[in-house]
């Protein structure tokens, strides 16, 4: 209990840089409906002005604030302390599988480079002078694409992926999920290029199908199923068939 009479709890926050670091304990006020991001922000505003972390929207849209909370990668702005740390023990660290810049801020350059490496750039097949493409919303391909397009690029799946942890060159669940949405987008003009990109040594066939990405995705996407779809599609293409979504 703090002097003001307001309840408090202890939080451990990782402080350091590329060369290493350690956890530092802080006492912060316990408030109703407090998120992990609220805790980090309170520490920076009141105790540790030099604490580095990243956030923007605070409402689960921008994908900036992912960190490791009590050993699990999470979006911190929508993770309530009462739910993720019911016993009052809170340990906050940078996202795994990404180089640390400082404290809780990671360098996500490699993560986004892999979106490009997986053929994630949309290649239009029409110009703005053409009429809009008519896509049946209920078609299997469109449904498969729709299932994956709400990714917020937070990197939680990437941090949770054991294959990325073992082989840093692996494209990872988010980039492959993006590739799967493009493969199923009737308007995309570079599907063969995507399939080539994700069939390389660092591509979808390295996935162990453990499903950690799906288990951790904060917006409920299923990158594991997307990767399975890519494997199926590449296999059917190789055998001369047309892959189903």
């Amino acid at each position: 209990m703090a002097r003001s009479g307001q309840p408090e709890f202890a939080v451990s926050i990782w402080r350091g840089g590329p060369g290493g670091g350690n956890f530092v304990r802080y006492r912060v006020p316990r408030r109703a409906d407090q998120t992990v991001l609220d805790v980090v922000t309170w520490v920076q505003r009141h105790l540790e002005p030099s604490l580095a972390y990243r956030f923007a929207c605070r409402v689960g849209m921008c994908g900036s604030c992912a960190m490791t909370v009590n050993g699990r990668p999470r979006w911190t702005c929508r993770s309530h302390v009462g739910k993720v740390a019911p016993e009052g023990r809170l340990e906050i660290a940078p996202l795994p599988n990404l180089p640390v810049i400082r404290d809780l801020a990671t360098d996500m350059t490699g993560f986004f480079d892999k979106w490009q490496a997986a053929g994630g750039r949309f290649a239009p097949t029409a110009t703005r002078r053409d009429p809009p493409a008519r896509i049946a919303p209920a078609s299997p391909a469109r449904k498969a694409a729709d299932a994956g397009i709400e990714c917020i690029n937070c990197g939680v799946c990437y941090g949770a992926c054991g294959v990325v942890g073992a082989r840093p060159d692996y494209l990872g669940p988010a980039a492959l999920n993006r590739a799967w949405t493009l493969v199923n987008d009737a308007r995309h003009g570079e599907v063969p290029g995507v399939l080539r990109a994700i069939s390389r040594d660092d591509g979808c066939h390295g996935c162990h199908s453990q499903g950690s990405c799906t288990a951790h995705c904060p917006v409920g996407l299923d990158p594991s199923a997307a990767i399975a779809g890519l494997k199926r599609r590449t296999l059917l293409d190789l055998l001369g068939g047309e892959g189903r979504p």
Partner: protein
Amino acid sequence: MTLWLYVLQRGSALVLAPLVVAHLVLIVIASRDGLSAAEILSRTQGSIGWAAFYGTFVIAAAVHAPIGLRNVIREATPWRGRGLDLAMALLGLAMLALGARAVIAVVGAVVAS
């Protein structure tokens, strides 16, 4: 090449799975019935069926194991590149040679002694 290795490994696994089960059942039957080596060889030697069964087994294992081991090594160690690929190809050939030797010993015609 990655895609082909993936296909070969999964395909060989599909072949291996029933063969391994049959092989294990055979071991249990042979040992429970107390068959001697001579009795087993009298059944297998000259048999095209057993030659096909264990020949397929050896080929599938020689394809499956080096690809899987290559994946494990690439994930668990920094070793990759041509040296690893060559080593795994040699492992596959060695498994094929040793397996073929065993198959020939079990199903080959009896040499007059």
